[in-house]
């Protein structure tokens, strides 16, 4: 595995995320139907189809515009809360990679952090509110720590994926304070959050896209 992520590698990561979501979309719909409207699985499918179309269409070696196009394509999904949130994750990453031809471990971690900032600009949801923020924030924190302590790209992705999965799992015991599931109040406790689970699949897919042994 390479020590730098250029457009080819980023495309592989993105396709990995799409594949992982596609393999798990039924679960996502089921989780959303507990307190939400059950559309999260199909919305994520549409989002990933748009993502792949943008990756296919991307030409040249511009990381920033690859991520911008992916973000814009996901924003273009008529997907309730998911489109803007997930779209802005990639739009945020795009801004952070301005001027980079490739990303090393800390640049990737920084890009993830900017992505999360893009998401958090859209919502007041905080960690603990049972939303995708609960998977995003630990994933990005883990990526930052690993990069700071000198970990390589693969370790960054591996730790981010593990933290996202743990963060998503932890939403099971939370009560939803954002999104449609907020309306069922304490009844939301006991089921993991759909959006957080999506994020955990996305990070798992990033890893698989880069490391076919993962």
């Amino acid at each position, binding site marked *: 595995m390479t020590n730098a992520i250029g457009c080819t590698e980023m495309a592989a990561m993105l396709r990995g995320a799409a594949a992982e979501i596609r393999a798990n979309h039924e679960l996502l719909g089921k989780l959303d139907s507990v307190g939400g*409207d059950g559309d999260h699985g199909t919305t994520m499918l549409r989002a990933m189809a748009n993502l792949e179309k943008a990756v296919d269409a991307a030409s040249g070696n511009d990381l920033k515009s690859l991520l911008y196009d992916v973000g814009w394509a996901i924003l273009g999904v008529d997907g309730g809360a998911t489109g803007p949130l997930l779209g802005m994750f990639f739009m945020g990453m795009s801004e952070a990679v301005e001027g980079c031809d490739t990303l090393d471990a800390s640049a990737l971690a920084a890009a993830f952090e900017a992505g999360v900032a893009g998401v958090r600009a859209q919502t007041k949801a905080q960690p603990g509110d049972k939303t995708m923020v609960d998977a995003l924030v630990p994933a990005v924190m883990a990526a930052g720590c690993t990069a700071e302590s000198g970990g390589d790209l693969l370790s960054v992705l591996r730790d981010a994926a593990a933290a996202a999965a743990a963060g998503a799992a932890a939403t099971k015991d939370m009560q939803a304070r954002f999104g449609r599931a907020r*309306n069922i109040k304490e009844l939301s406790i006991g089921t993991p959050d759909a959006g957080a689970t999506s994020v955990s699949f996305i990070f798992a897919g990033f890893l698989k896209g880069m490391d076919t042994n993962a």
Partner: protein
Amino acid sequence: MAMKKLLNKPENLVQEMLEGFVLANPGKVALEGANLVVRVAPKSKDKVALVTLGGSGHEPALSGFVGEGMLDISVPGEIFAAPGPPRVVEALRAANRDAGVLFIVLNHAGDVMSANLAMGMAKKEGINVKQVLTHEDISGGPRSNPEERRGLAGALPVIKVAGAAAEQGRSLDECLAVAERMEANMATLALAVSGATHPSTGDVIADIPEGMMVVGMGQHGEAGGGTQPLKSADETAEIMLAALLDDLQAKAGDEFLVMLNGVGSTTLMELYLVLRRVGQLLEAKGMKMARTLVGEILTVQEMGGFQMCIGRLDDELKALWDAPCNSPALTVK
């Protein structure tokens, strides 16, 4: 689950529905660009344009209110899902004019995010757009906490009065003021008596126990909390009206628009019984049912139930409510 619906392929549902919708209303609406619903006879460019966005599956809302004296452009999303910012920006661009654009947004997380992202982009492009956010669902929480309150069928009165003001040539700020005054004086409560199915997934979107009703259920089947035994039309009217009047701190002498929005399988007959009781109750309190609208405005598929929306009216709002309009789902002569 086998749905009792007449459908084709789910992935084509919204597209085919929109094609049928404009075929049903050929003199009134058309599709433009990325499936924006627009007026066949556009308003003159020196008047403020009204734009809204929202998920599909609630027909006739919201695109059914595109027309003279109402909306200029509606951006329909997927089933129960807000359209993404790119199409919304396109709508704001299409509506762009010196007189300005009034952007009506119902408070649901996806709609708000998409609207705000699109507004930001539009403003960067120099588009003169101002937003009114509707959040009149009293089941979300107290009036002091508007973010928690959803936008329900009360979007219609806001569209109606602001649309009339725009048609009269009033400025963007005047249209916004009228919209905000209507919004600030509205309160809505939803009642569900039977569930529905999601037309793409077939999932049950509200599971209401036999013989029960749910007060405060959202328009996508989000649970509401107030599950209780099914009451009579009169008792239901009493419970709901009391909560709404309380929220609005209504006083004797107040005049109201009373709008009963059937959400699907509840009949006009039932809504008329409820309206009758609301009229009696208001009269007993020295208040007035000054205007009424009863019908299917913002539906939730075949769900049983209705939304009761009341709006305090002043003379100006009354005149704007009465002004002529001509849209697929509402025509006033």
